[in-house]
């Protein structure tokens, strides 16, 4: 259904590779990401530790995989929830009574009053270190993007001849949504979803940076970058791994989002 441009295909490829690594890694090496080995800290990648060990002697091969799993899961969950809420609210705002539209406008202005990160910061401070509170906060901010796009498209389509003719022919609301609104919204959704996923991961990493995000021992890319920063001179690869992983996963999402090369 989706004709992917070259950039989107390369994005998909990178994402597939990362997913394969994230899910495949635990199968290739036994043990879990939190077992420490205090006598083997900061070892460079070698035979039995393919990606070396971190400052607790934990196996980076498994730990990075777990961090990637967390980021991808957060991205997927946030995109799904915000898309669901955003599109339904958008279509309803465009088709239902005007007071609903004004109400949604008020809510949106309120949320947009503060940059997303500040709001998430406050939410994360309430229940520090909980994945679910972060997920709720990020989705709360991201649904607006979907709301605005779907409302704009639906508003334009309600006046269009196609919808008018379907109404004249006696088709119901659900059919009009399925045949007219959804096919127009869907391609746009893909772009926003891809960028939404990228932003969700970036935001979670940023919160890790300000020590409000995830609590130990959970592995998270942003927190890892901060923890490993002080070892940058005697174990540079330790800092490089989460950095590159984060850059790749965000790059993959952004490439997928870019139909034509922006």
């Amino acid at each position: 259904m989706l004709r992917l441009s070259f950039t989107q295909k390369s994005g998909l490829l990178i994402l597939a590779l990362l997913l394969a690594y994230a899910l495949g890694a635990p199968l290739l090496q036994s043990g879990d990401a939190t077992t420490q080995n205090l006598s083997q800290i900061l070892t460079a990648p070698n035979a039995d530790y393919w990606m070396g060990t971190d400052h607790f002697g934990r196996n980076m091969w498994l730990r990075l995989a777990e961090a990637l799993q967390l980021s991808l899961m957060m991205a997927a969950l946030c995109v799904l929830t915000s898309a669901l809420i955003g599109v339904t609210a958008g279509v309803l705002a465009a088709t239902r009574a005007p007071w609903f539209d004004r109400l949604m406008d008020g809510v949106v202005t309120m949320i947009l009053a503060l940059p997303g990160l500040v709001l998430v910061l406050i939410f994360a401070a309430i229940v520090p270190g909980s994945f679910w509170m972060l997920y709720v906060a990020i989705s709360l901010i991201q649904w607006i993007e979907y709301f605005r796009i779907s409302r704009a498209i639906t508003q334009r389509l309600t006046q269009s001849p196609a919808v008018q003719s379907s109404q004249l022919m006696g088709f119901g609301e659900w059919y009009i949504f399925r045949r007219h609104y959804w096919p127009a919204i869907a391609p746009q959704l893909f772009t926003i979803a891809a960028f939404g996923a990228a932003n969700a991961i970036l935001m979670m990493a940023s919160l890790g940076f300000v020590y409000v995000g995830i609590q130990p021992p959970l592995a998270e890319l942003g927190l890892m970058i901060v923890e490993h920063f002080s070892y940058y001179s005697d174990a540079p690869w330790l800092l490089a791994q989460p950095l590159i992983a984060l850059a790749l996963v965000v790059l993959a999402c952004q490439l997928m989002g870019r139909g034509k090369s922006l």
Partner: protein
Amino acid sequence: MSLIHIENLSIYAGMIELLAPISLTVEKGERLTILGQTGSGKSLLAQAIMGNLPRSLHSQGQVSLFGRMVDNAERQAFWGTQISMLPQEPWNSLDPLMGAKQQLEQTYRMVAGESPAEARQQAAYTLALQGLQDSGHKRVDQLSGGMAQRVAIACAMAGGAQVLLADEPTKGLDVSRRDQVVQQLLSQSEQGALITITHDVAVARQIGGRMMVIKSGELVEQGQANDILTAPKHPFTQALIEADPKNWNEAEGDTRHGEALISAQDLTIGRGDTALSKHLNFTLHQGEVVGVVGDSGCGKSTLGDTLLGVHNAMGGQVKRHSKAPRHQWQKLYQDPTAAVSPAVSLRTLLNDMVALHKIDRSRIAPLMQQLGLAEDLLERNSEGVSGGELQRFCMLRALLLNPVFLFADEPTSRLDPITQREVSQLLVDVAKQNGCAVMLVSHDPDLIEKRCDRVIRLSA
């Protein structure tokens, strides 16, 4: 000394030849019209002459202006001062953020080299000449199509160019605006030369001078305009001329029709809070074809929508004498591609309707055959078929609902002349066979004359 002389100029996209080699000369004071269907490579010829072909195309052959052989780069120096071109969409060729007068002034000042005071005075004079003196400050989005076209022409000639190339100058304009623009072109290029590119036979007839007819990149006929128009030799030219509604044969004017279907009593129609037409009284009968004509903006489409119940009347009322259910009052749209969802194949859309209204499938094949719709057409979606085919598909869908009333809102204005003739004929015949009343709207009085039993004139 010829103003323009071209020796077998041809245009290629890579290896494919878009325009076969063509030669022409235009002397001082001469007028040349290039006639052809849309997409036959006419505008490429104009761009080749001017030297602004898109990067992906390249041309061969020699072009000499004012007796001197010039390649693309040198020709740019001639732009504006010696030769000037008017691109197709006038409302796109003016800067959206700048007033009309300001743009004209600017051309006088920078191209003709006049002092700011002279330029301002000259611009005011030219605009007054065109009757636009009070809309000088307006921006493009505040001007009508016709007004924008006239400002664009003024700008094109402001540089003092002797030769003007006009590419489809009357596209999308209604009849009265079209004639005004043609007159302006003729007067502006009195001393120099005018090359006009159009698909509208009526425009060609008004301009006169020499004419060349192009069919899909090939020069098929050339000579004096009125000779070709009165006695076309090439079959394609004949079909083109006959497609002009002026030459259609008269409708039988059959006055038999069933009893009253719907009538307007002292009806006032309008959009938003502005009333467009007041105190309309008429009655439509079953199987009758009624035409509605008037300049754009006089409420033709609003009248139809009010009858259909999509818009509510501002005054008076619409009385329906028949109990036919809502889905038997149908509408055909000006732009079929906007009225049919491209998301799925035409077959699926058809199946949706059949399922909704439990239509007996056996009726589809004969109707499609009658409407000249091939079976495999249904596999494609609305963007995969031509404008004519799509309009006929809309008619199929409407007819399957056994409509009692069909409001056709300029159904053929977007189609090329030949298809326009076929589809409008088909519409009237099929409606009459199925006893369906038709209200046909168009801005072309000839078309309405030739197709309808009765005509309602709306004044702006």
